[in-house]
């Protein structure tokens, strides 16, 4: 079966996030002085062949933690869903 996987990689809490801080600092100039708690991250989408949803989740999680995220500073959130017609 083919599964669609999505991996969201974000900086772990407590790790300095200069990108988000820079975006947030720019916002008041655009009139958005009501925005706070900005975070940024990266999103990865791919398809994966697996025998079950559980297996797809396991493979996608392994890929996410071994390559897509650096566990020293990033967390990965993984989700998978079955592709229609699989």
């Amino acid at each position, binding site marked *: 079966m083919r599964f669609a996987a999505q991996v969201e990689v974000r900086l772990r809490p407590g790790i300095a996030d200069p990108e988000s801080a*820079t975006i947030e600092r720019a916002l008041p100039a655009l009139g958005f002085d009501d925005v706070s708690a900005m975070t940024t991250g990266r999103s990865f989408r791919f398809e994966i062949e697996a025998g079950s949803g559980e297996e797809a989740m396991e493979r996608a999680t392994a890929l996410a933690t071994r390559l897509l995220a650096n566990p020293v500073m990033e967390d990965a959130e993984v989700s998978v869903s079955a592709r229609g017609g699989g």
Partner: protein
Amino acid sequence: MGPRVGIVVFPGTNCEHDVAAALALVGAEPRFLWHGERTVGDVDAVVVPGGFAHGDYLRPGAIARFSPVMEAVGTFAVSGGPVVGICNGFQVLTEAGLLPGALQKNRRLRFMCTPVVVTVASDRSALTDGVAVGTALTLALNNFDGSYVCDRAVLDELRAEDRVVLRYSDNPNGSIDDIAGICNEGRNVVGLMPHPERASSELIGSADGLVLLRSLLSVAVG
């Protein structure tokens, strides 16, 4: 013949010739190691130089660590061979798990290209052997992801085991504990963000990097 130093070249590496020239100045016999090779050959030391290995795609060093040569570099390191990662090379060594921690974006998202003063924090590493603790060195900093980060347990370990090798005198990038360079448990693998090879002659502003490269060579030939 001087000590043979292998300089790893990935697609996107751009400091290999500077490193080779600086090493030759202090008497080494540099040779380039293409990233696709599966061996480091009969070298006495390995340098992973700066640049943008594999375009720095995903994260600096994230793809480079899968290059065939890195397995050989890992084996060489485990056997006690001296390995130094400079700038992008430091990032590659952390991604490869040869050094703990990671390098993240500089504080305030600044690309830094500037001389920087670092002080020697430990004289027990392949890069600082015989260099007195407290020695101030002016080296060149040139990076975007140069802010060293690690968890509390790793930091405590680095401090307790005297494995912080270099510290910034005036922390330019938000690195935890002012860390500019560290070494592994065996003290033979060293990573640092500033470039010693770009401080190899008074003509280019500083020759302070030579003392580090000399240390590497003396450790390399034991």
